[in-house]
């Protein structure tokens, strides 16, 4: 499907979708609480079939966090970017690791570095940092006077 066709088709699936302009691919903001059902539909719907989640990341906007999911269909070769706004003090979103299994590691990384809690994740522990590490280093307000060198 082309980007234009995706833009027409998506609101049928997700009525509350808000598009963001610019960028190479269609970027859609979804409600964090509805993400799980949307993800299931995006994966299984005949017209979309987004079976390949190639990048999961989080961005700290100081007022809120944004989860960013990059999806591609290996059948139709169309791509989509899904974003979900999260509360910075209590970031919570449903896991999609049962839909795309690559998400298991990527979500653990986002939990490790941003503190996003993925509900119903099978094994939510720190991945890269030690278990007793304090704080979430990729947040903008993270301070470490010993190890961090500011340029």
């Amino acid at each position, binding site marked *: 499907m082309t980007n234009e066709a995706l833009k027409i088709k998506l609101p049928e699936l997700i009525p509350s979708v808000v598009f963001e302009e*610019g*960028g*190479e*691919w269609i*970027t859609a903001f979804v409600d964090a609480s509805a993400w799980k059902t949307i993800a299931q539909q995006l994966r299984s719907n005949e017209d979309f079939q987004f*079976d*390949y*989640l*190639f*990048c999961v*990341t989080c*961005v*700290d906007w100081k007022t809120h966090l944004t989860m*960013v999911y*990059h999806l591609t269909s*290996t059948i139709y*070769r169309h791509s989509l970017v899904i974003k979900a706004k999260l509360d910075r003090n209590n970031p919570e979103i449903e896991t999609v690791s049962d839909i*795309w*299994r*690559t998400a*298991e*590691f*990527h979500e653990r*990384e986002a939990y490790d*570095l941003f503190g996003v809690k993925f509900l119903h994740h*099978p*094994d939510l*522990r720190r*991945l*890269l*940092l*030690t*278990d007793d590490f304090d704080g979430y*280093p*990729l947040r903008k307000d993270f301070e470490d006077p010993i190890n*961090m060198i*500011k*340029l």
Partner: protein
Amino acid sequence: MYRETQIIKHAQKASSNGGNLEEAGDLVINVGPQHPSTHGVLHLVITLHGETIKNVEPHLGYIHRSIEKMCESLSYRQFIYVTSRMDYLSSHINNHGCAMCVEKGLQVEIPPRAKVIRVLMDELTRLASHQLWWGAMAMDVGALTPFFHAFREREMINDIMEETCGARLTMNYMVPGGVMYDIHPNFQKRVKEFIEEFKKKIDEYDELVTGNIIFQNRMKGVGYLTKEDAISYGCTGPTARGSGVSCDIRKLYPYEVYDQVQFNEIIETDGDCFARYLVRMQEMRQSLSMVEQLIDNIPEGDFQAKTKAVLKLPKGEFYSKIETARGEFGVYIVSEGGTTPYRIKFRSPGFSNLSALNHMAKGYKIGDLVAIMGTLDLVIPDIDR
């Protein structure tokens, strides 16, 4: 890093998810972080029943440097140099991916000469990386000689790189707008010498290892990964192509001059270790043919487009992907319009490939784990970042 009690606790917790693993005779062992077959500081906690693997749990982060955070305080020219330290076996291609992402933001068209030089360097890097993998792979399963053969030819590429880029591993040759310097006057001559030499040697590689019955017994029917699982785990590169997934970025989303050179995307459908091995062996021949096609056709002209001294990306998001020796390497830059990236994310191929390891190794013998890890071609700094 992890106290022993914690390791056992974690392993038990993880293994309890996979079914009834509490039965007598289960053994939890650690492979790594210092172990010859992990090729770096990777720590695996393995639950065994007899010799059969029940669960493999990777513990990462022994070489985590938080490169993503570091990049947030580096300018768009500087951050590319840090990426050489991620996948140190294909640092050219990492640099290339980052340079492409910055160029996408700046909307700079790079000169044709730079494009061809970039592709040549990428393919030479891929050859060097696959050569090292081949030697290490054979060494992992017990054959030491191939390692020396592979390093002998790899040395020729390293010498070529050293002459033009001034470095053997961390090249830092790609810059936004093109390449840093023009190629060395000897470059074409030496690459041609290498092509002649390696054409003979790659047949020798096949004679030495590929047809060896002991080697085939170790590789065939081990570490199966189906096509659906490969996609679901986000595997890319030769790992996924060995399972029949068409995922070569050079073919699907051609960049630079990949749409003008003749090459085949190598796909094997068996999905076992031997299929992944064959993909990489044939990819070496494809890379060699690409280098051969381009080496006499480097266009004259500038090697770098004119760019400002201080780069500023417009507000927005940029994503570029590139095929490294291990798979799809993605760079995601969020820009606020300043001279440094607001947020940068590197989607490294090894990270996703490693996540499939537990699925692939379950049910096989512990000796097979080494073969499975070998065909994943893991580079640990690329996974930990």
